[in-house]
């Protein structure tokens, strides 16, 4: 080992060396005093122990005084000097050694907590293989520019955020989303820096590199969350502003009464609220770190503490309890072909941008039925198009093009939120909607139609009526019903049961009608449901549940449900990895669409709340006992310091349990 690396080794291990030297000298001096009669020799060794352990403390104390703060190190230094002054070498050495040992261990364990996130950061490789000027080159990952093609071989970690442009593979996204199962990625799919490419080579068009990646953004959010003060922390800080001067007054009073300098210094040193102020932050930082590694972003201690009190979880149905992939399950024509029912509905829904409309359009494109009324209109378009047209396709001709198949544009259409759509096309009127829309418009629903609708709804499906009025006619007729189904997520019943086991009430909020909602609620095993809610009603439903005295968490997608997430005591957004808005509005964000994280997040929050109580309780009890002990002379400077440092370590250790929760 050369001199330079020896210096470096000394610098990084200085604290440990100081503690060890001071400890050995302390033990030596104590043994000497115990075994022999050489009191002076023993005192000298103990003095050396105090100096070895106390030098760094005293120099930090000097800087504390210089920056005009009264810190623990100044107090410890004063106490040690005072003890030496009255010849209590053993006490001086003990208090210095115990304080140095305690600080060293505390710093070490806190480092472990702080490093929990660094491990995530280290998941991102430093270099990336890019294609530049027709050849592959290795460059620093942060220098990759947007749009550049990065090649990721099987087994490699993805160095940048980007979209797959070539290749197909399974990618382990655990570092970002916490999902343990690899996710299949192909052309057009988004991949995140820090994830692991497991199977095939991928070529990625870069969308973000360096500090501008999803993982980096998440980590910054997590750190901000860890730095934000929780209500308990603020409370303790406020308490400390009265408590600390109180201890000072107490120790001055004790000196005035007893003229015992050591007693009053002891009061000062062990009266420091060490365990009290360190407990809550350690609990919270550990819990937030743990959650982050499981793909749950907690927005801060405040949210975490509140989440620990929730007794009701409300789920939005679509996309949360269900997969959010609504598809046509069945079509029934009444006096018309099924194909025609679908075609009418497709025209009306073409621009509705509603998820039921999207499903109808997808079915229409897939089945490719001819547009009803023969040759006048075009046939169904086969060309690939996104489910919700963005208007660029508006120029699709409605004149028949013998080969081209297109869903013609309606001449006009009117979306009635929560009810359906009314459209006109070539003199005809098409209404696609639920029972209440038909009632509102005075359209009769024949018994056989109602019967069919009931049958589908009892299976948890959504049935929409398709109504047609021919050009020039005045009477409407219900020509058919389309039944749509959104499959439940497999985990949904287990998740609901797990929450119920924790004593939490579960509620489903949905725009579906009563019968569909009841069927789905039964299938999931949810306690309660609120049906036929318009988007704005969901927020009111949350307020309603709160008025009943519940502390409500709301689970939704974070975009459509933003208002209800904001109203709930704790808003939980799902599948937030790619969407900053969802992270913005929610108190808690699940990076993946993984419902199973919800019982985990709720129980982690509850455990954190208890952990904080335990820590505060232990700290208050320790300080109270120590103060009483000092005032009654049962506790000395050294033994007080031992208990004080032990209580701080106990509190840190207890908080860190949450890292492994």
């Amino acid at each position: 080992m050369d001199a330079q690396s020896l210096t470096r080794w000394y610098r990084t291990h200085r604290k440990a060396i100081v503690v060890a030297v001071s400890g050995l000298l302390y033990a030596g001096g104590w043994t000497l005093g115990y075994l022999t009669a050489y009191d002076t020799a023993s005192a000298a060794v103990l003095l050396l122990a105090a100096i070895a352990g106390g030098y760094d403390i005293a120099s930090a104390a000097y800087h504390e005084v210089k920056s005009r703060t009264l810190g623990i190190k100044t107090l410890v230094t004063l106490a040690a000097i005072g003890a030496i002054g009255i010849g209590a070498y053993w006490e001086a050495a003990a208090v210095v050694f115990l304080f140095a040992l305690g600080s060293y261990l505390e710093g070490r364990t806190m480092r472990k907590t702080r490093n929990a996130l660094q491990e995530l950061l280290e998941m991102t490789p430093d270099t990336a293989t890019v294609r530049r000027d027709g050849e592959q080159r290795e460059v620093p990952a942060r220098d990759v520019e947007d749009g550049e093609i990065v090649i990721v071989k099987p087994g490699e970690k993805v160095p940048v955020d980007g979209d797959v442009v070539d290749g197909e593979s399974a990618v382990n996204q655990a570092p970002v989303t916490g999902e343990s199962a690899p996710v299949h990625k192909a052309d057009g799919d988004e991949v995140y820096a820090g994830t692991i490419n497991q199977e095939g080579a991928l070529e990625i068009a870069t969308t973000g590199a360096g500090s501008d990646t999803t993982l980096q953004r998440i980590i910054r959010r997590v750190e901000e969350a860890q730095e934000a003060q929780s209500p308990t922390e603020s409370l303790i800080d406020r308490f400390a502003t009265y408590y600390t001067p109180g201890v000072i007054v107490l120790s001055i009073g004790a000196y005035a009464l007893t003229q015992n300098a050591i007693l009053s210094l002891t009061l000062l040193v062990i009266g420091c609220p060490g365990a009290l102020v360190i407990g809550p932050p350690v609990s919270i930082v550990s819990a937030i770190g743990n959650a982050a590694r499981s793909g749950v972003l907690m927005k801060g201690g405040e949210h975490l503490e509140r989440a620990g009190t929730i007794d009701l979880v409300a789920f939005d149905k679509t996309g949360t309890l269900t997969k959010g992939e609504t598809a046509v399950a069945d079509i029934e024509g009444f006096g018309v072909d099924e194909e025609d029912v679908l075609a009418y509905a497709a025209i009306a829904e073409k621009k509705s941008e509603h998820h039921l409309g999207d499903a109808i359009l997808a079915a229409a494109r897939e089945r490719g039925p001819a547009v009803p009324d023969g040759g006048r209109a075009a046939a169904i378009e086969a060309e690939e198009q996104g489910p919700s047209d963005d208007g660029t396709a508006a120029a699709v001709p409605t004149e028949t093009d013998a080969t081209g198949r297109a869903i013609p544009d309606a001449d006009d259409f009117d979306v009635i939120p929560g009810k359906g759509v009314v459209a006109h096309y070539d003199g005809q009127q098409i209404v696609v909607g639920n029972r209440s829309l038909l009632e509102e418009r005075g359209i009769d629903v024949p018994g056989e139609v109602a019967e069919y609708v009931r049958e589908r709804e009892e299976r948890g499906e959504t049935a929409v009526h398709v109504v047609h009025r021919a050009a020039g006619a005045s009477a409407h007729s219900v020509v058919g019903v389309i039944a749509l189904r959104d499959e439940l997520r497999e985990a949904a019943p287990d998740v609901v049961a797990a929450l119920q086991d924790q004593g939490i009430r579960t509620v489903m909020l949905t725009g579906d009608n009563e019968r569909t909602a009841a069927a789905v609620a039964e299938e999931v095993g949810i306690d309660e449901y609120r049906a036929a809610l318009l988007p704005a009603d969901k927020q009111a439903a949350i307020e309603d549940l709160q008025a009943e005295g519940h502390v409500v968490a709301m689970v939704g997608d974070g975009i459509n449900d933003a208002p209800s997430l904001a109203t709930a005591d704790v808003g939980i957004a799902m599948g937030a990895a790619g969407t900053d808005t969802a992270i913005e509005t929610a108190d808690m964000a699940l990076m993946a669409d993984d419902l199973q994280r919800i019982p985990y997040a709720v129980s982690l929050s509850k455990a954190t709340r208890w952990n904080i109580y335990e820590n505060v309780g232990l700290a208050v009890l320790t300080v109270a006992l120590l103060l009483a002990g000092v005032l009654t002379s049962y506790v000395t400077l050294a033994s007080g310091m031992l208990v004080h440092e032990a209580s701080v370590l106990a509190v840190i250790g207890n908080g860190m349990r949450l890292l492994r929760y």
Partner: protein
Amino acid sequence: MSETTQLRVLDFDCPSCASTVERALDRVEGVEDVAVHFTTGRVEIDYDASVADPDEFERTVENQGYTPQPV
């Protein structure tokens, strides 16, 4: 000209030690704003580059007995 730098101190052992470091950094010449976060060990310093010497920040942290690392 105002600039911002970050340090990371992984071995803070108590919240009040972090605030002591914060106050010490605040007294360094040219420092405009400083935030020391005990929980994450993150130190953010806004300073006037024409007055302050960034090396002084690390020395100030070391004087208090902690090991600063560049971010």
